């Protein structure tokens, strides 16, 4: 309805392969970014920043990581949380053990550690597919958490592996206040999301999707399955790793390996199912959904509805609703909220026509 595309013709391939080919979308995106960077820090309170916006961004990044692997390259993983743990502990150790380590370099290195571990646990993908692979990734989930708990070196010998994030200081600016943490998180996440978008719209992304959609055909046109899958594992794990580092440094402050458990992996998987498998924007929509849903439920059940629902049921409502939503989305809209958004957009572009 608000799209006025007539006259937006493309006279070059650059223009034709833009991230947002429609001018209205470009404007919308720039406006959103301006709002997130310039307005939000001034209007959002502590609670919103720390309990909603920062975790949404961080989980969104982790979900993006998983989406690269699952949504684009078609390899299901149930070990995303473990790769987050590698990123967090990796960053912690680089900060701890190397004097004057810049934080941004440390999270980069932490991410690279996660990528390396990702490649290792991605190796079975060469031989096995589908849920066999999913089960194999559980090995990573359990093994990595166990290693981090059992080997005190990783947590600088703290009890039960808890680490406390060091102070973050970049170019003399202290990132202690929620606003600053939010801005740093937002910057890192925006940059990484952009890089991911670039990858998926070029040859790298096409190879992933080719492997996802039909691996035999992919191989026949010259795509090397092993390389492509491992690359997806590495990049996906890198994203999860960075998300893990941000999770520790920008969100919680102190984390233990057990915090990166299977439940968290599932949560991230749910984000992409609800948000949209194979959609970068969907990762963030899904993260927002999963972060906000308990908040909303909390409000609802401590408010009016709470009086009519037994306490046991209320406290388990989150599980039931999550479960139902997953089932609902997989049956009704396997491509999640992102697809719904896309459909709505299509409708708006065609308005007033139905098709």
């Amino acid at each position: 309805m608000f799209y006025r595309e007539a006259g937006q013709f493309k006279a070059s391939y650059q223009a034709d392969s833009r991230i947002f080919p429609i001018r209205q979308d470009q404007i919308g995106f720039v406006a959103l970014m301006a709002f997130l960077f310039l307005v939000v820090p001034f209007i959002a309170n502590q609670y919103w920043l720390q309990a909603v916006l920062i975790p949404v961004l961080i989980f969104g990044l982790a979900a993006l990581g998983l989406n690269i692997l699952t949504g684009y390259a078609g390899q299901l993983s149930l070990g995303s949380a473990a790769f987050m743990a590698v990123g967090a502990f990796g960053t912690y150790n680089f900060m701890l053990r190397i004097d004057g380590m810049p934080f941004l370099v440390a999270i980069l290195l932490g991410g690279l550690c996660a990528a390396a571990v990702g490649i290792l646990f991605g190796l079975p993908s060469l031989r096995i597919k589908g849920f066999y692979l999913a089960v194999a990734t559980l090995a990573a989930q359990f093994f990595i958490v166990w290693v981090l708990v059992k080997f005190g070196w990783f947590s600088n010998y703290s009890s039960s592996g808890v680490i406390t994030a060091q102070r973050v200081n970049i170019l003399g600016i202290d990132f202690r206040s929620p606003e600053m943490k939010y801005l740093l998180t937002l910057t890192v996440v925006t940059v990484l999301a952009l890089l991911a978008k670039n990858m998926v719209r070029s040859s790298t992304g096409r190879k992933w999707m080719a492997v996802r959609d039909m691996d035999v055909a992919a191989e026949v046109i010259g795509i090397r399955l092993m390389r492509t899958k491992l690359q997806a594992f590495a990049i996906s794990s890198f994203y999860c790793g960075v998300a893990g580092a941000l999770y520790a440094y920008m969100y919680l402050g102190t984390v233990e390996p057990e915090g990166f458990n299977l439940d968290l992996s599932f949560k991230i998987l749910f984000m992409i199912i609800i948000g949209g498998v194979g959609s970068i924007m969907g990762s963030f929509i899904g993260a927002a959904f999963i972060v906000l849903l308990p908040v909303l439920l909390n409000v609802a059940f401590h408010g009016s509805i709470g009086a009519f629902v037994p306490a046991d049921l209320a406290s388990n409502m989150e599980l039931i609703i999550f479960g139902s939503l997953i089932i609902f989305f997989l049956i009704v809209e396997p491509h999640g909220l992102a697809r719904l958004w896309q459909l709505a957009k299509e409708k708006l572009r065609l308005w007033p026509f139905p098709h």
Partner: protein
Amino acid sequence: MSDTSGQAALDTFPRLLMHHAAVRPNRPAMREKEYGIWQTYNWAEVAENVRAIACGLAELGFRRGDRLAIIGDNRPRLYWSVAACQCLGGIPVMLYQDAVAEEMAYVLQDAEIKFAVVEDQEQVDKMLEILPDVPFVEHIVYDDPRGMRHYTQTMLKGLDELQEMGRIHDRNQSDFLNAEIAKGASDDISIMLYTSGTTGKPKGVCQTHGAFIAAAKGATEFDKLSENEDILSYLPMAWVGDHLFSFAQAMYAGFTINCPESGETVMTDLREIGPTYYFAPPRVFENLLTTVMIRMEDAGAIKRKIFSYFMGVARRCGADILDGKPVSGSDRLQYWLGNLLVYGPLKNVLGMSRIRVAYTAGAAIGPDLFRFYRSIGINLKQLYGQTETCAYVCLQPDGEIKLDSVGKPAPFVEVKLADNGEILVKGPMLLKAYYKRPDATAESLNEDGYFMTGDAGFFDEDGHLKIIDRAKDVGKLNDGSMFAPNFIENKLKFFQHVKEAVAFGNERDFVTAFINIDLEAVGNWAERKGLAYAGYTDLAQQDAVYSLIREGIEQVNADLANDPMMSTSQIKRFLILHKELDADDGELTRTRKVRRKFIMERYGVLIDALYEGKQSQYIETEVKYEDGRAGKIAATLRIEDVKTFAPQGGKQAA
């Protein structure tokens, strides 16, 4: 750009081209959707390419005064060839790309063509097929080399190769082309367009640079066109309308023409480009509206309500708002809302958001259709003209739009009416001559130098010209009252289920008609009603369809009864034809005008049946299929009577 002509007057197209290349070299002159994007050529590039083609043609032996046949879809390189030919003082002869071989042969022979630039293999094949009949043809240049690898004929040459030759030639003798351009004069013939000829063989209309430049200048100033306009060039290049809008006006005003990717993608391409200036015959607008309505029928109830509500608002005040007439505040608000919710998006989906001026011509446009476009804020206007007048006689001025007139005489044009009502025009845009037909030329121009359009019409009280019919078609019923078949047929055609109609009545007691139903519209209607049918012939003879058409004709009759001059022309009997009238069968011209005489001969038995009071008539007709095969369609056609109305004497015609 080496413009050696200096300050010389911009009185030929080559000089205009070189002028644009010098003053706005980087402005886009042409775009073509090719390889997925709009390949853009600026004026400097266009000039360079035109030079190359011109020099290449010269190298082939093309000389001043030679004719160059140009056959193909709207492709930049064909437009360039037109310009290149003009540079050399040659005469481009435009041919319809869908012409069958023998039609082509006639024109090629008539114009004594030695050189031809054609689009692709298909056209080359056609040329080669008729080669024995056209001994003059020496060189055929093709634009698209696809599939041409194994053609060994030495007369064939790729346009790329020709341009390469031309570039070398231009480099070696850089003065040659400038000198040729300098030799050009305003009253040189700039183009030959063949009239489709409702009677007899087509005639080559020779127009001068001066004529088309005058027409372009007048139109440009009339509508304040600038170099920033975008136009979509998708109508046949051989049609005078395309030549005026896409070539002459673009060359004069310096705006951009845009060539669609292919016939199937015109609608998408239209939407992408979003032209600011648009020209189409009424049937294009009609098809668009039909699609709009059909698509809207699938919409949900709420959406349909919103749509019809705001379309109501638009009908009430849209045209007035466009014309700048006073409109109440509440209507204005509603229209604004409607624009947000319906008209804006609708125009956008149709690709018409950016249109400043749109014209239609070539046939009468239905008032509902016309009003629809104007009411949603598209400045659609009508113009009137012929090939012989560069399609430039009357234009509707902004703000003075009348549904049933074609506007006021355009700048530089003088219009007067002959005693028999025939429209006579004079001005710089008149043809120089019919090619090799001094007889015809003399016949069409009267002793005062007026061109006799052959159309009958009159001026209303505001000085707007109204067209009734072809002057020669206007006849008399046996009771002596006027019979204007076109007028009746147009009224029938405004009815969405009727595609074509042919009315008879000259020297008869009453009026009868042949009807062609619109297969798409009626088919849709039948589907909604749950009627099964097998193709056109079957659908056309169904009871329900007959009564549908009869209702329409009754409406027309009621309408005619209101007009004192026409009340005797009410249709008494009609039949629905068993086949669609088709240009391939010679029943229509290429511009889809009815060839009355031919039809009267071909379907004489049906006409007799109409007047003899028969209830049905058997007929067998030969047809030509798209692939060139011939076949026969036979059917027994039903003939039905229609209710007529008593004349309403009270209302006086203007």
